[in-house]
């Protein structure tokens, strides 16, 4: 496995008043890795992810995303990452083609590139017939697959996925994971959060966040061995049960 480090986090901390949302976390993520970022509600996942995307300034600690510093080079970070969340990803009142064009444009692709990518993308998702349909009229699973493909349209170094498969049917959910593996094979690092514990098993490595700290970080099989559990679900329960805090 190549060990190019694309995310380097050192004692990263974020406080809101006297509340420490993220408490001195440190980890590394390698190129082409599928990295699962797990934790209970309120463990500090969202806050940590925001800092890594350059949306929120850390209170202390260091982090470099694709080699760029999270304090000073947030603009460069934004250019080298893709982002997709369950809540907002695409404009529902624009068509598939218009969304592709819009996000391609935002990330500075040329018209020629957008055209090529657009054909490629709709072809691979079997969505050629849906090109001129409103995104809002598509089934959720299709939307999410489309949103993911658009999030990596500019070949980012890292793509951040915040619960991308929530509520998606089991078949489409697996198709979505195929897209994730394809992206990883192209060298895109995938940083993902999920509430589906079976999906945790699909990741190369997993970090478990509890009360703002990373309590465990390893491959799924090693974690199961370490906590002598049969599934990631049990590992999760074991770790999260010890949680003190309950607020988001």
């Amino acid at each position, binding site marked *: 496995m190549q060990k190019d480090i694309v995310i380097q986090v050192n004692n990263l901390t974020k406080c809101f008043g006297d509340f420490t949302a993220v408490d001195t976390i440190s980890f590394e993520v390698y190129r082409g890795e599928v990295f699962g970022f797990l*934790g*209970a*509600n*309120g463990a500090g996942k969202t806050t940590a992810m925001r800092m890594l995307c350059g949306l929120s300034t850390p209170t202390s600690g260091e982090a470099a995303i694709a080699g760029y510093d999270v304090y000073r080079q947030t603009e460069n970070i934004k250019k080298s990452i893709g982002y997709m969340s369950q809540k907002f990803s695409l404009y529902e009142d624009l068509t598939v083609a218009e969304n592709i064009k819009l996000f391609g444009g935002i990330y500075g692709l040329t018209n020629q590139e957008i055209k090529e990518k657009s054909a490629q993308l709709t072809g691979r998702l079997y969505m050629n017939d849906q090109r001129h349909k409103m995104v809002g009229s598509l*089934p*959720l*699973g299709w939307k999410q697959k489309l949103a993911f493909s658009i999030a990596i349209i500019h070949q980012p170094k890292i793509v951040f996925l915040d*619960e991308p498969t*929530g*509520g*998606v*049917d*089991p*078949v*489409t959910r*697996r198709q979505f*994971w*195929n897209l994730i*593996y394809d992206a990883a*094979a192209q060298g895109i690092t995938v940083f993902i959060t999920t*509430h*589906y*514990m*079976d999906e945790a*098993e*699909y990741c190369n490595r997993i970090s478990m966040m509890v009360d703002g700290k990373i309590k465990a970080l390893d491959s*799924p*099989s090693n974690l199961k061995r370490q906590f002598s559990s049969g*599934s*990631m*679900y049990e590992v*999760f*329960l074991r770790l*999260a*049960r010890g*949680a003190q805090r*309950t*607020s*988001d």
Partner: protein
Amino acid sequence: MKSIVIENISKTYDQGEVKALKGVSFKVGQGELFGLIGPDGAGKTTLFRILTTLLLADSGDAMVDGLEVMTAYKKIRRRIGYMPGRFSLYQDLSVEENLNLFASLSGTSVAENYDLIRDIYVHIEPFKKRRAGQLSGGMKQKLALCCALIHRPRVLFLDEPTTGVDAVSRQEFWEMLKRLKEQGITILVSTPYMDEATLCDRIALIQSGEILSIDTPQGIVEKYRGNLYAVKSTDIGRLIHDMQDAANIRSCYAFGEFLHVSFERDNATAHQKLDKYLKDKGHSDVVFRQITPGVEDCFIDLMNE
């Protein structure tokens, strides 16, 4: 008497453009914990809204607690508790204020029915002065459940109560539902998480407005066509690709650390052939064993049918 009777309910939106429900029928018995399992967009919320008298069906009949949903909506509203998909609490009111408000909605008081919610309320009581908007997902969910229960309903409708809630809170929530069931309350609950299906007495699998199957979780699993196998090798990513080209495979998909595989013609030769095929492709440490399918496997199978 059946608590909920649904007969051939259909519902469309946008002048028939979107078919949300296509002739759905099932019955839920008194005191049963019934799960409606399906992904987003399957029609779960529409069905809940029809049963809670918030929407009128295009065709078909439905009865809740022996009352017609179309005509007796006022009576039904007195007898049911409803927790919509989005947590429908007043974010700017405190935990206590929310609970008191919902109690007085039905002309009752928190003290009167406290015994029913005590087990749930103790979890959030330490935060009773906190605004609902500042609670975590799991606590909001508990508060919403208390609010839906406070008037001692005979039938409880919970639309995706565990969506977006972490695994720990989800487990606690299901334990609470079991205790409520023991009090004789009929509970209809929907969820997109297939692993929660086994916690229900009976489940209906729903997809694109149609019921795929109705049975006990055990019964659903027993109805699975043929055998299911779990396959694993050292390089799971390559294994997925290679399996796509393998012969005699009915279905193959990732499931946790394994692939779940079923055959077109399932016999010992088929197993040997697959083993040889994978070895030829250079896979090492191949694990191959038969497993009992889960509800999710059944769902995928029914979807592909």
